[in-house]
């Protein structure tokens, strides 16, 4: 089944525009030299809005931990059950994390600690999302 389609808003549009161009671009505070995801109106550390800019990142990470969704509440994803939901930490800033269904990894067989690389998956006619693939 297709995944649920994110709806960009004014704040998140630059992020999703980049994803649609197959780039992972995160907010970065130039004062704090700190990445921020999901995007916010201001830097969580210093409160600045002016110092936030968008910065492309390499999209490399590691699998921190995972669960397997066997009885979730989201109707559209129910036919996919059971499926993995992994927590990915970004190598460039391990305090930033992402969710991933780890395409290609069978449920329950998640290699915790493994390196992953961002990929982009189509969820709607004009909408990609960021996903993560284990680096072999």
């Amino acid at each position, binding site marked *: 089944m297709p*995944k*649920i*389609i*994110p*709806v*960009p*808003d004014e704040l*998140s549009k630059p992020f999703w525009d980049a994803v649609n161009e197959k780039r992972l671009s995160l907010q970065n505070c130039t004062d704090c030299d700190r990445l*921020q*995801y*999901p995007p916010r109106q201001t830097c*969580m550390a210093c409160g600045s809005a002016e110092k936030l800019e968008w910065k492309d990142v390499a999209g490399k990470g590691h699998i*921190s*931990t*995972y*669960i*397997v*969704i*066997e*009885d*979730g*509440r*989201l*109707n*559209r*994803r129910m036919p*996919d059950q*059971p*499926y993995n*939901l992994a*927590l990915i930490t970004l190598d460039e800033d391990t*305090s*930033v*994390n*992402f*969710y*991933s*269904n780890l395409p290609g990894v069978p449920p*329950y067989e998640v290699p915790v600690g493994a390196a992953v690389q961002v990929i982009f998956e189509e*969820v709607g006619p004009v909408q990609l*999302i960021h996903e993560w693939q284990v680096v072999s």
Partner: protein
Amino acid sequence: MAAQTPYGWRRDTDGLGVWEHRGKVAVAGFGHSPVNRRWDETSMDQTLGAYSMLACELAMEDAGVTPDQIDGVICCDSHIAGSSGGTASNWAPRPYFDPPYDSEWGLTLVNGDWLVKQMELPNVKYAPSNVPTIGEMMGLAAQSIADGLCTTCLVIYPTGNMEGRYRRGGENAQDHADGARQWTFPWGNHGGNDFINIFPHNQYCLKYGGTHDDVAPFVINQHRNGLLTPWGYNASSGMVQLTDEDYVNSRYILNPLRIFDCDRPVNASAAYLVTSAERARDMRQPPVYVLNHSQHNFSQRTTQPDLDEIEDWTDRAAKRMYEGAGLGPADVDIFNPYDGYSIMSQFFLEAFQWHGVKRGDSFAFYADDIRVEGPHPFSSSGGNLGNGRTRTAMYTDSIEQLRGSAGPRQVTVRAETALAAFTTPSSGGWMMFGKHPS
């Protein structure tokens, strides 16, 4: 009833010192409606509104207070399952009933205005709107009494449940996700506390050792305490004691989270009568004093809070509460943290260091004697896992333990102080009760 202007009642920052009204506010009564799995959609004496009125009447009776003495009503504007509940959140489009059930009010929603009108409380001068859930509502009531906004206040927390699977509708049934959901829904996370806590719980097991099923003794003991609570769902519905075999063979929801790690949604209401300590001394029951209330609302750094963040948040919440109460871990006799999902309780237990439990010690503690008869009667209420998702058992048990009226749940250790909460690691509130005002 005009809504009151919100005022800064919260104690939600670090370093506030001892609560200036410590011991000057008390809980003088409580009342519980029956706890049904769902409203049967036909019994008008079992609606959320009818149950809330019943709970209020029982609380007033418990305290020996008459309706004309009530001058404050604080009620959470309850929604059955929030916007994610879809058709299960509203009675409409089905036809309504005769008054007072001629709208959603009383069926799926209850608030102060509706209750004041239906109960014909003649002297209510304070019934704020936009009231938070029970975790913060008890703090609002205590502060409101202390600040003189009212003198004798009913605090009501209704939790509704109708036919249909819980929260399987509304935004959870949509193909698109906006707002905060755009960062979680595409990958299957509906954004609840089950998801928020299961990842840190996995990290906890990895960091400190142990497996998920090490929470089994806690869950089983919650069911045991629930069966010792006459008003609770388990005891009043003929449930049998959960066994270790039941638990480890139960199905997964979010593997490793099992069905028995999740509380059961119910249709019920509870009410508390909060007043000044001075007035409470003249009422029917021995007062249970409020020694502090504190709140917290921490912002997560990124998509998913990790174990470090959860431990930091709960440590800060514990420090706030202890500081405001002028007490420390060794002073707390009864400890009733929130347990809507079993996997979050260890974070609270270790942050508050109840009975000396430090970070990473919870699974060993659970495996020891945590029965109410034993030396470490953890969560003597049975919480939500043992009584259904009322979110009030923690408060009621704390009051009963300090009164000495908990019946078969009465602990055998000292019971002079009690901590209770409906809170997640990120947001909510705590309340410290005392048998004595200081």
